[in-house]
């Protein structure tokens, strides 16, 4: 049975035994393998992090003709203020029009907490439908309705006949899972259950046999390229270019997908993920329900990873020869362009921090550029990444530090003080600590920048070169800004607050 028959997706702790605590080295981690960081281990001291609501909104805020209706307290979903920049520029790049994302809040107050928020939600759905006339309304449930026990799905079922927009529930009760990657499941779940049917007026009846054949051929060469907002338009263009070189068409899904075109994801010949952390839930569903096979393996960040990613796809379509030709040409051109940077990067020490797959793939890329990897921090750990650790272990000679943490800059600062890297790559709102230590920094994810494919390797190299060439902003900052940690903490063991079986330190 597919999970989509349930109202809500399971949390990842249960489905994938995902965890967020580990401190040790790469060798230690590969020795421990799956038991490395025991499910549900904890920290005795922790810093704030994000919840699944944020990445979920990152995806949903991009959908055109959609109204996001947050069901929660007034603050939940405020993150849309920064995601709006992506909605604006992303829309502009794709359709030449700048438009703000549209999110609303039911703004639950004290009275609602006592008497329940269902009536308010009902009214808000009706009013949103009437005021904005959207194709879809995504009702995003935050913590409060989860605790006071609002039956969000019940309200939607009840109210759907009265509104013309399609209503999609997305469950994002932050306290229910500490693995925010559950967000991708939550959004895919909502879309998968409600939006994949071909709209009636789109079913062309008068279509000739020839057109039918043509369409069939086209579909046999169309692949779903999944993007949960971890790539910007530049990266989509790069991957479409590479797939196009193999004669394949891409159907990008689900960010910036028009509601009337979402059904297309059920017609493709193959689904391709750029990151198993993101897409396993959807690709398995598409296979089960629509018999669409999938590839869920490599993240096309870095030269070798991009080569592997292309080879997997080519093998599926029997295009191995074309792929080898493409790879040869691309890598030759790229290597030539990289040579001046490589000399400069040689031996420079780098530390990366991001979602697990991205962190590992980027570390691999950096090793290809000649950097020495001194540490990798991943936001969580699950089974998909085992092969990535193996790849990385083979590619780099030295042992290095691994830390699984849902951000937790206190562990990071402790490690950075000891490891003293030349450059640090961290996620959104995750570079401040390294900056204040005077280390050159670069953001590892930003939808306005290029990271993916061959082009991504070159552009990232170019940006790192620029950061390393003049890191004075951070250097000067470090002389004048304070970090909020005690001297005692810098002297402590970095993984001191990881309880039970989470780290090597406990052995």
């Amino acid at each position: 049975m597919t999970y989509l028959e349930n109202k809500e997706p399971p949390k990842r702790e249960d489905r994938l035994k995902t965890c967020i605590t580990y401190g040790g080295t790469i060798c230690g981690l590969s020795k421990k393998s799956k038991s490395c960081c025991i499910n549900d281990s904890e920290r005795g001291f922790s810093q704030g992090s994000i919840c699944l609501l944020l990445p979920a909104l990152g995806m949903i805020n991009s959908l055109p003709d959609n109204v996001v209706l947050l069901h929660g307290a007034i603050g939940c979903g405020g993150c849309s203020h920064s995601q709006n920049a992506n909605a604006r520029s992303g829309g502009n790049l794709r359709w030449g029009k700048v438009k703000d994302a549209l999110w609303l809040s039911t703004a639950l107050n004290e009275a609602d907490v006592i008497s329940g928020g269902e009536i308010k939600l009902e009214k808000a759905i009706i009013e949103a439908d009437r005021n904005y006339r959207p194709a879809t309304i995504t009702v995003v449930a935050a913590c409060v309705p989860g605790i006071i026990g609002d039956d969000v799905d019940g309200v939607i079922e009840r109210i759907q006949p009265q509104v013309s927009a399609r209503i999609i529930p997305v469950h994002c009760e932050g306290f229910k899972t500490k693995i925010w990657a559950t967000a991708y499941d939550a959004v895919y779940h909502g879309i998968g259950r409600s939006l994949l049917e071909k709209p009636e007026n789109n079913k062309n009846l008068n279509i000739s046999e020839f057109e039918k054949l043509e369409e069939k051929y086209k579909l046999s060469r169309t692949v779903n390229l999944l993007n949960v907002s971890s790539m910007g338009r530049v990266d989509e263009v790069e991957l479409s270019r590479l797939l196009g070189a193999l004669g394949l068409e891409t159907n990008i899904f689900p960010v910036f997908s028009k509601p009337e075109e979402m059904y297309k994801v059920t017609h493709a010949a193959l689904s391709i993920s750029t990151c198993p952390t993101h897409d396993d839930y959807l690709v398995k569903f598409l296979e089960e329900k629509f018999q669409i096979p999938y590839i869920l393996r490599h993240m096309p960040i870095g030269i070798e990873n991009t080569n592997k990613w292309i080879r997997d796809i080519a093998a599926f379509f029997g295009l191995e020869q074309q792929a080898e030709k493409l790879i040869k040409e691309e890598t030759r051109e790229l290597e030539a362009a990289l040579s001046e940077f490589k000399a400069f990067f040689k031996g420079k020490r780098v530390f990366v921090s991001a979602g697990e797959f991205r962190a590992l793939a980027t570390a691999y890329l950096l090793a290809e550029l000649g950097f020495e990897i001194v540490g990798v921090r991943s936001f969580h750990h699950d089974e998909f990444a085992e092969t990535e650790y193996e790849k990385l272990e083979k590619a780099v000679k030295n042992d290095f530090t691994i830390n699984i943490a849902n951000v937790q800059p206190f562990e990071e600062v402790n490690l950075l003080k000891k490891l003293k890297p030349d450059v640090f790559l961290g996620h959104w709102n995750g570079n401040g600590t390294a900056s204040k230590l005077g280390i050159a920094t670069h953001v590892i994810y930003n939808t306005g920048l290029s990271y993916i494919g061959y082009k991504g390797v070159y552009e990232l190299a170019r940006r790192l070169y620029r950061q390393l060439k003049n890191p004075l902003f951070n250097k000067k900052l470090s002389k004048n800004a304070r970090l909020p940690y005690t001297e005692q903490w810098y002297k402590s063991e970095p993984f001191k607050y990881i309880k039970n079986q989470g780290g090597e330190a406990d052995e």
Partner: protein
Amino acid sequence: MSSFIERPRYLCALGGAMAAVTALPDTIPILHAAAGCAGNITWTQNGGSGLQVGGYCGGLSVPSSNIQEREVVFGGDVRLREQIAGTLEVIEGKLFVVLTSCVTEIIGDDVKSVVSEFQDEGIDIISAETGGFKGNSYHGYDLVLQTLFKNYLERGIDKVKGRVNVWGIAPYQDAFWRGNLEEVRHVLEKLGLEVNTFFTSHDTLEKIKQAASAELNIVISDIYGVEAANVFEEVHGTPYLVTPLPIGPSASDSFLRSIAEALSLDDSVVEGIIEQENKHYYNYIEPLTECYNDLDLQRYAVVIGDANYAAALTKFLSDDLGWLPELVVFTDQLREEQKPVLTQRTQGLESGLQPKVAFETNGSEVLRHLNEIRPTYSSGKYSDVFGPAFVVGSSLDRELAQTIGAAHLSISFPVANRAVLDRGYAGYRGGLRLTEDLLSAIILAR
């Protein structure tokens, strides 16, 4: 009233509280919350606070108990105790403020008693109940001030003549918070006063602890921090004065006079300062005169903002810049009894203009209000349209500006499209800054 709030221009009480605590000197927030709240607040600042995120211990560095389903079922007291103990070991701070969230308040954790265990050990630690459902950022800011006044300030100390406290601007929620506070401090210091503003780099915890020695509290907001002023008066017996945020010379003149009156300062001294400041102001304005005329820089205006800005900007546009603000929109969630005073602030303008006032939390409704005043587009050869126009609002009002062909400047939250550091619009100098920014937006393509 709408059953939802469109693109809320504020966070929850916890969001405002966390921002306020991180803005206090050497002060560390400890969130008793689910893991996502800190991130949500951080992302919001990232998108709306003029490129300012965090502070000394803000952003994703804030200690947070990150409670989960288990605590929801069994209670979070144990986890909170452990988290506070860990914070004291890892984080360097002089004052710690525990902030509760939606989840921990609904499950009913006894935060006060956990906190008092640490107080008994002599730790400077206080708490505030800032569950998100209790109100928005501004309310959270007020709650932080309340707990500070009740639980941190030294009690029973003597009042010192000439000492005042100033508040009424919510950090990060007002992207210009630092510049505004600095400028208010600056004009008050001209009066010879000793000023504590809590949140700027001139303030220290030592002085804050002594804040009850002030003879007057000045709340430069009709709404934000007024409840805290009541608490202050109850606990420490200090009276307070509520004034609008003074932007530009006209408002600053009145501001100084009202302070002088409340403190019975020498009239001639105050008038002397007012004269001097105006002279300085117009000395800068003077060379603008030719271009201001030649380029026809007078504008009709729509002002959209929070309770502080909407009224204060209207006053400046009308009475200093000589523009025609015809519509003022307050985007806050306000109680009925809070509205009259705000409406009144936008009336009685020296220009004689009587702008239409709307209380509207949904930004997309502003165009409807505007159309009720006069057409926004030409409908024939002779039509008295709303133009040339300017939209002074937030970055969410760019679509409106585009629709009516107006220039635009983001001032009220969110300010997504500007970098703000020490810029402020309060006081005389703030009026100059604002004139620069407004006119620069008009002549952008010149």
